[in-house]
């Protein structure tokens, strides 16, 4: 696999992670389900994973960039696993609605595991790293205009989602810690929609 193909695949990975975050936002905004604190930390894990892929897109593929993504997935996955264990006993309740029979935190753990698996598979392909150590990996828009434009667009989308999540979290929790079961935006009490 060439560095260029690897960069394109990382751009597609960024798109996939962005879609995960957009789906979570859609649930929050359209269904009025406010994310719990652990749900927010899982979103941080996804943004961290996206950051590792963004490094590959911008600076060229390196093992350390995949390590950033794997570590972020492990941290996010640990939060997901903790939340699953909190509800794993029947009768102990759940948080949020289920999608295709699984709750969001369960899907999150599955996606984090898939991210680790995907990164491990990418790390098997050594040819993508040739030339990266010599500083030839950095993206130049003039060299590969279409790949550069796609990659940078996905990078911008992921950065925007980090900003949107940050703003949303401030509106939901204010400057402190979030309540365990949030029902209103602390800074927008007038327009908060109660959970169904």
């Amino acid at each position: 696999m060439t560095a260029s193909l690897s960069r394109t695949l990382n751009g597609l990975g960024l798109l996939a992670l962005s879609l995960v975050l957009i789906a979570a936002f859609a649930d929050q905004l359209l269904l009025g389900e406010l994310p719990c604190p652990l749900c927010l930390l899982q979103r941080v894990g996804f943004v961290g994973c996206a950051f590792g892929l963004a490094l590959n897109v911008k600076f060229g593929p390196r093992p350390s960039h995949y390590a950033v993504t794997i570590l972020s997935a492990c941290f996010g996955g640990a939060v997901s696993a903790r939340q699953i264990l909190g509800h794993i006993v029947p009768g102990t309740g759940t948080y949020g609605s289920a999608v295709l029979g699984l709750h969001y935190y369960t899907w999150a753990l599955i996606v984090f595991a898939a991210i680790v698996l995907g990164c491990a598979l990418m790390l098997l392909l050594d040819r993508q790293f040739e030339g990266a150590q010599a500083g030839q990996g950095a993206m130049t828009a003039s060299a590969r205009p279409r790949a550069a434009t796609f990659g940078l667009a996905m990078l911008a989308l992921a950065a925007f989602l980090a900003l949107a999540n940050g703003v949303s979290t401030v509106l939901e929790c204010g400057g402190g810690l979030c309540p365990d079961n949030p029902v209103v935006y602390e800074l927008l009490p007038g327009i908060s929609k109660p959970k169904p």
Partner: protein
Amino acid sequence: MMSLPFFGLLAAFGCVFAGRRRAALAFWALSMLALLVLFRLHATDALTIVL
């Protein structure tokens, strides 16, 4: 406080755009540290499971 990791990662993305890899990695590391601290603060209830 819960928004700190998001804004840290936003700063990391900004550094990526600016071509500052080391600074971006530093912001990422701080954000992950914040994630772990917030996780510790929020995961306080005992689990009803036997391992």
